[in-house]
């Protein structure tokens, strides 16, 4: 594939408006306040409306359904800017996962109804797919078996983000008994207020709320089913590749911010009468991280381009991006604490939030080991 490494003027504008928006509206302090005030919602509608006006909620939605159709490179720039400020938004769940699944799987009627509502910022949709203690750690067992024209949803989902502010949940369930792997899976849109839906809410290590879901015979009508029965496997695979690649862009933004904060601190903090950044032991650590960051920038960009082109090697590039950035973000965040010294261990300083976020992002949509395995398989070894 012929690669375009340049950023267009249009993309530059998008990036600038994203950087400005997250710095003003959803800075790290916002995350801190959310944690300290025990906020259960996690994200507020007025921000979603603003993001809709900027065109971001419909960034992957075709223009015929009211979207901006800017593609993954565009979404990646927004995610990167959000990552810089550890801004937490439903972009990944709604603008990416739900939009893509509806676009790919939904009937014409469902697309007509749902996609414009997402683009307009009217709906937030949480995504419930993971069941085990890690992404991909065990086969999915939640079932939605049909009886007559209805389905009964039964099972548990272990980690769901954005539920506090969501209207609907996109749920992945088995509609064929004893099916395995990608076979017999279907997508359902479930109202958050459905009878029989048990929600346990907890707070993640970085202060964001998240939920565990227990579907105890939730009754669903035929119209809850997205698209064709049993055909969700392929769209789920595409969705998680897209999510892995886009999350990598967010992690890149966070990694750059943590690196820059640390670099600034090394130039200003004095010990033994000199700036600690003059010590070679610390310089070499930073120079190594810089090199890894440069390589990661190329990787993230390549993976977003592969997603835009629906490159046949998409799985290879998205797994490359997610594995590398999961490792690098965690490494930079941990090094950042060490290089900040004592102040880095305090809750008062914001660098600790980067370490906490890095653990979460590393686990979502497959950790580094999961993606190294996928990458090796894609490379046939």
């Amino acid at each position, binding site marked *: 594939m012929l690669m375009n*490494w340049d950023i267009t003027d249009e993309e530059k504008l998008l990036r600038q408006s994203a950087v400005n928006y997250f710095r003003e509206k959803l800075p790290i302090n916002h995350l801190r306040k959310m944690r300290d005030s025990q906020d259960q919602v996690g994200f507020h509608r007025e921000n979603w409306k603003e993001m809709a006006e900027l065109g971001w909620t419909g960034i992957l939605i075709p223009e015929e359904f009211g979207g901006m159709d800017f593609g993954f490179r565009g979404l990646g720039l927004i995610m990167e800017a959000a990552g810089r400020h550890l801004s937490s938004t439903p972009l990944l769940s709604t603008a990416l996962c739900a939009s893509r699944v509806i676009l790919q799987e939904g009937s014409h009627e469902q697309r007509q109804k749902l996609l414009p509502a997402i683009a307009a910022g009217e709906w937030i949709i949480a995504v419930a797919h993971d069941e085990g203690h890690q992404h991909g750690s065990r086969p999915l067992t939640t079932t939605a078996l049909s009886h007559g024209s209805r389905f009964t949803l039964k099972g548990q989902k272990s980690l769901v983000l954005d539920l506090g502010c969501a209207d609907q949940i996109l749920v992945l369930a088995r509609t064929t008994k004893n099916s395995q792997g990608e076979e017999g899976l279907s997508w359902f849109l479930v109202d958050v207020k459905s009878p029989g839906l048990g929600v346990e809410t907890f707070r993640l290590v970085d202060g964001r709320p998240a939920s565990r879901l227990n579907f105890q015979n939730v009754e669903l009508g035929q119209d809850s089913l997205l698209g064709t029965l049993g055909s969700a496997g392929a769209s789920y695979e595409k969705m998680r590749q897209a999510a892995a690649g886009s999350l990598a862009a967010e992690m890149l933004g966070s990694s750059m911010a943590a690196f820059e904060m640390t670099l600034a601190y090394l130039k200003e903090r004095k010990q033994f009468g000199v700036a600690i950044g003059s010590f070679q032991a610390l310089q070499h650590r*930073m*120079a*190594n991280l810089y090199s890894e960051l440069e390589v990661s920038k190329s990787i993230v960009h390549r993976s977003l381009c592969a997603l835009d082109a629906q490159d046949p090697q998409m799985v290879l590039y998205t797994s490359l991006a997610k594995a590398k950035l999961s490792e690098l973000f965690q490494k930079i965040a941990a090094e950042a604490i060490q290089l900040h010294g004592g102040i880095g261990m305090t809750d008062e300083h914001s660098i600790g939030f980067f370490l906490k976020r890095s653990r979460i992002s590393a686990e979502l949509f497959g950790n580094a080991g999961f993606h*190294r395995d996928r990458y090796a398989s894609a490379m046939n070894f």
Partner: protein
Amino acid sequence: MLQEFRQGVRTWLEQNCPSSMRTAMVEEEEVWGGHQEKFINPDSKIWLERMVAKGWTTPEWPKAYGGGGLSPQEALVLKEEMLSLGCRPPLISFGIWMLGPVLLQYGTEEQKQRFLPAIVRGEIRWCQGYSEPAAGSDLASLQTRAESVGDTFVVNGSKVWTSYADHADWIFCLVRTDSSSSKPQQGISFLLIDLNQPGIKAEPIRLISGNSPFCEVFFKDARAPKDHLIGPLHGGWQIAKALLTHERQAISEIIKKAEEQAIEDYAKEKIGLHDGKLADAAFRDRLSSFHMDQLGFQLTLEREASLQKAGHSPGAASSMFKLYGTELNKRKYELMVEAAGFDSLIWEGAGLATDLQATRDWLRSKGNSIEGGTSEIQLNVIAKRVLGLP
């Protein structure tokens, strides 16, 4: 326009590149030029002559000096077409990679006329006289002296780690022309010296790999005419640094293009598969991690090439490529010998197979992060010149 050029290049290559020059390169058939060149494969001589006639051994150099006069975009097209047809490089040359760019920038018109065409045609093989026994990473402390006697310099001292000096015709050399200045960088000059004279001796150094790609070069009252000085007298350090940038880039390019069996295929052969995956799960995980970094590095080289095309200068960032590329190369050979297991332990005698090459390469790769500026020196450069640390 560029599309037309591409078509023309392709047609020309198809008609002029001999078929044996479109197979994977074998080390013995590499063409380095100079008076010792044997052209083991006769096609390599034909291929070189045809490329020289087009000026395409140095596509971007001006036509006045025998170069191709191509724009950077056209040169890239040529490179891509050669790659896609599997054409071997017609000439491998320190003159092209290192000395030429420096002569183009700092040489006088006479010097360019005198030396560049011979580089383009591969007539003179150059070697690089930088390091000395007592001046490694601290290159500026070099002590090889060049004294002014009439219209020549008289050179005394020794150089070490001089690649292929025993096959070279000339040496580009850093020499001390002034020992009195307070900063060691200030008394250094950049001098071109003909190796074919009685006062110079090159002795190969045997390495841990068993090969001897490097020499120590001894100068005893060797002579060089004064007009072989490049740039100002005592002002060679600037040139030395510019050349190092070209060298670092050349090293990362070589690593990028290394034509050999892919490591995963080698590992599959040695370790075997289980359910379509390498049978050793722990090894597979580490190989995957290495493979990702390797691909990430290749992508970064592509990104850098595209930025440079847009006019961005690599400068100190070339240190990052040198650092990352050589550290990767060391990791690769660690994995290669580990995959080969017992087979990689045999040095001589019964059972010796192709795996010895992996073992030799593994030993040789340890020098990658020492030569051309150690990894630690590259980290210093990145910290100070890229990150702006004090």
